[in-house]
């Protein structure tokens, strides 16, 4: 069957230590037209992403050697060794990976857990068992992050006063996205300011 692909499908890396769950998430993702890679642990996920546990905090060059770009990472929370939360932290600590949207899955509905993940930078939290209807929530996060990435590239290009305009994101709505994403960046920066330095009034 000849299929003319107009664009490469988005690639999702799914992390889950449970074999039946891996099969399920893979099927859910494939049914939703994603390209899927599944791994059974956080450390294997990091390996696939091209970073190693020990040097995750440093700027990683390995990630640029990835054969296939990863557009989103979806991971189980409860895993032996490295939990989904630990994996999330490592991804956010990596300058080359932090912009990849991360979704956490868990069979337990624990608000403090959910909040902790979202605060650490997870884009979405799915309660297991994950359903087909949950899959439609993934693409917006991928597109949001891509537009943010392209707007950053635009800014860098302007700084360098580059002549060439090789920009992959030809989406006409990019401008509005980049405005809002830049604004969001500014807000993010404010949130990072250390709270403890503020004077406390009793």
């Amino acid at each position, binding site marked *: 069957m000849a299929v003319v692909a107009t664009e490469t499908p988005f690639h999702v890396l799914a992390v889950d230590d449970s074999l*039946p769950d891996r099969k*399920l998430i893979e099927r859910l993702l494939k049914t939703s037209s994603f390209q899927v890679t599944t791994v059974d642990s956080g450390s294997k996920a990091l390996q696939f992403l091209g970073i190693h546990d020990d040097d995750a905090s440093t700027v990683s060059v390995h990630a640029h050697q990835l054969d296939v770009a990863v557009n989103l990472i979806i991971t189980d929370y409860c895993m032996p060794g490295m939990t989904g939360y630990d994996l999330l932290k490592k991804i956010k600590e990596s300058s080359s990976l932090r912009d990849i949207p991360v979704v956490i899955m868990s069979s337990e509905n624990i608000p403090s857990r959910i909040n902790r993940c979202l605060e650490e930078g997870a884009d979405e939290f799915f309660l297991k*068992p994950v359903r087909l209807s949950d899959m439609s929530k993934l693409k917006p996060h991928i597109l949001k992050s891509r537009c943010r990435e392209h707007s950053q590239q635009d800014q860098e290009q302007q700084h360098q006063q580059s002549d060439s305009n090789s920009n992959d994101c030809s989406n006409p709505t990019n401008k509005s996205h980049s405005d809002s994403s830049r604004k969001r960046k500014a807000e993010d920066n404010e949130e990072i300011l250390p709270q403890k330095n503020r004077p406390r009034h009793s």
Partner: protein
Amino acid sequence: MDYTNLRRQIISMKKSLFDQGYLDEQFNQLEELQDDSSPNFVEEVVALFFKDSSRLLTNIEQALEKYPQDFYRLDSLVHQFKGSGSSIGALRMKNECSMFKAHCNDRNLEGCRRSLQKMKREHATLKQKLETYFHLLRQVGPPERAVNSWK
């Protein structure tokens, strides 16, 4: 081969599995994911569950026999079991796992032992029933989903 009769059997069996609480809505979700590109998906994922859960049952049994019992580890094993059980819609199994976890929490060894026996029975029963169900499905020929008309 009487396909009408077979189909009726399949529908009736599935209804009974749901009515008796062996399966829940998640099983329907699995069947919805099955199509021409993945014609044996449900049977495959169920097979993976039974393979995985058999291993877990053995580990749980071993962990219970160890002295002193490591309730933290026991809870973790049952948690895994519960998770994958819920992924295939195994309702009774899921509920029995919750009971087991409660016993772990109370450090109630006898409760855990009783729960394990129940889990093993439920596990064997569900396996047998689903094997029959898939056998019936295969008999009607190319992949056919049981009709959800009675939902």
